[in-house]
């Protein structure tokens, strides 16, 4: 349904005065989402997760330069095509209620979303019932909703349309575990109904609860695309055998329940021009080869990985 191939995004920014500099927050992104799948995009802040969502929807700022290809349902996306599809075939589930119109009852907003996505006959009653929202909520304004209800309304707004691709950008930050599970369950249900879901999150644990695929981002690069089960296969005592990229392993091993292991160094900034593997500066098995050129994608098992040292 969605294929992102070799996406690169650069910005020219002004420093003080007229001096300009170039940054490249997205270096080599690749991703594929099929209908009926949840693909979790996992990485730290600054790894380019949100920019990917903006690039797919075509809502990057004007000073962005984009290379690479994005294909949606078999056709290549152009800015014009993105404008046509946005809100109809592709929809964003935003982070917080502040994206809702504060002056309009939520029932009308859900109705409006349905009309905008060419689905005016959609039953608002039914969707409210599906997401366990009392009928009285329809008359409420966003500020009158509790945090949990507001989140359900946001999902309902995206679910009522006919959008085939749903992009959820960090839907669970700072939420209590029960609410996280509820929100994630809703996303899973949407995928089970045949839609494609891109779940953008920094929270690997949350992603593992519902995703089919995990795309691991590091410094604007997809370093590994792994099945969710790959994170569960027991193997080496310190990480699951299914994981091939050292960063994926480090991310997993850093979870408090998996050992809480830190790793020295930090993610390279988007200003640094780097020829080789982006993770080389922090990787214990990095060699000359790794520093010299970016590892190509290597297919291993069902997924793929960008690492010279990965073995099947």
């Amino acid at each position, binding site marked *: 349904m969605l*294929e992102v*191939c*070799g996406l*690169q995004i*650069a*910005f*020219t*920014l*002004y420093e003080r005065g*007229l001096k*300009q500099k*170039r940054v*490249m927050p997205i*270096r*080599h992104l*690749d991703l*594929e989402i099929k209908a009926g799948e949840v693909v979790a995009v996992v990485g730290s802040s600054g790894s380019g997760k949100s920019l990917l969502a903006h690039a797919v929807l075509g809502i990057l*700022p*004007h*000073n962005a*330069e984009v*290379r*690479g290809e994005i294909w949606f349902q078999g056709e290549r996306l152009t800015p014009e095509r993105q404008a046509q599809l946005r809100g109809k075939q592709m929809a964003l589930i935003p982070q917080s209620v502040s994206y809702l119109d504060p002056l309009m009852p939520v029932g009308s907003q859900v109705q409006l979303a349905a009309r905008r996505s060419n689905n005016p006959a959609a039953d608002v009653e039914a969707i409210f019932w599906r997401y366990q929202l009392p009928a009285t909520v329809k008359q409420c304004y966003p500020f009158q909703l509790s945090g949990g209800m507001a989140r359900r309304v946001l999902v309902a707004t995206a679910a009522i349309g006919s959008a085939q691709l749903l992009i959820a950008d960090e839907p669970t930050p700072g939420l209590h575990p029960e609410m996280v599970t509820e929100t994630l369950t809703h996303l899973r249900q949407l995928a089970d109904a045949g839609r494609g879901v891109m779940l953008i999150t920094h929270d690997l644990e949350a992603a593992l609860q519902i995703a089919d695929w995990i795309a691991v981002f590091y410094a604007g690069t997809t370093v590994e*695309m792994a099945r969710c089960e790959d994170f569960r296969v027991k193997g080496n005592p310190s990480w699951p055998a299914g994981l091939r990229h050292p960063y994926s392993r480090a991310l997993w091993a850093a979870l408090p329940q998996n050992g809480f292991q830190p790793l020295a160094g930090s993610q390279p900034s988007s200003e640094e*021009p*780097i*020829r080789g593997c982006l993770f080389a500066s922090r990787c214990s098995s990095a060699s000359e080869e790794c520093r010299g*050129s*970016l590892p*190509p*994608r290597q*297919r291993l098992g*069902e*997924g*793929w990985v960008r690492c010279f040292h990965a073995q099947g």
Partner: protein
Amino acid sequence: MSLVHSGDPQVASPLLPESKPVFWNRRRRTILTALGCGLLLVLVLLSPYGLGSEGLSTRLSERNLPPSWIHPFGTDWLGRDMLVRTMHGLSLSLWVGLAAASLSAVMAVVLGSLAASLGGWVDVLITGAVDLFLSLPHLVLLILIAFSLGGGMRGVLAAVALTHWTGLTRLIRAEILQLKSAEYIQLAAKLGHGPLWIARHHFLPHVLPQVIVGLILLFPHTILHEAGLSFIGMGLSPHTPAIGIILSEAMRHLSTGYWWLGVFPGLALLLMVKAFDTLGTNLHGLMDPRTSQE
């Protein structure tokens, strides 16, 4: 996965090819536009010193001449050069406008920060006054104040200053209130800094640019209102070469075919007001982080 190619051509270039920096980029254009407007306004402000007041004296031999190379704006029924009169008028209006707008801005800064920092009944009083002034018809209030102070320079200054402080007061109050609740401001106190230090280091750098832009955007209003008051005879005395006086005199001669008496001064006024507006908008665009990267 279908998209895995063994060769993967994109991988070869780790960076996008460097695109040539555009010389006429948006920021350069914005800064130059702002500089151009600023220069124009300074020229207008100082033009009387350059042109001298020779053209202001009566020369009955050169009455009612249409525009020519010697008198680009023509001459009036007393033979006075309209270009010199217009520039004198604009300059005077500009000075009055500057003074009135600055008075307004000072009022706005004092009242806005008092309302936001003291709160309570002070806030109620000041926001009440803002609402009251906004609910009264602008022009009526302007005329009323000018009239009750007996017109003249003092009346115009007071009337224009007293009717233009409201918008900026609201803006400053809202800005300060929002800053007050910001985590980094509350944290500054816990790092051991007193209210004065916080005001100087956190509030001032944030609010000052907004005040400057607000002030510049006030000029067009104050200048137009000064001209308006003088035009209807409530403002500066008829002997001063103010732009409002020139325009109101021109009205009497328009029907007799002396079109240049009104058209050129009017256009000049419009141009100056537009220059201020452009200057303010461009500066705002540069200072606002949301638009400064475009």
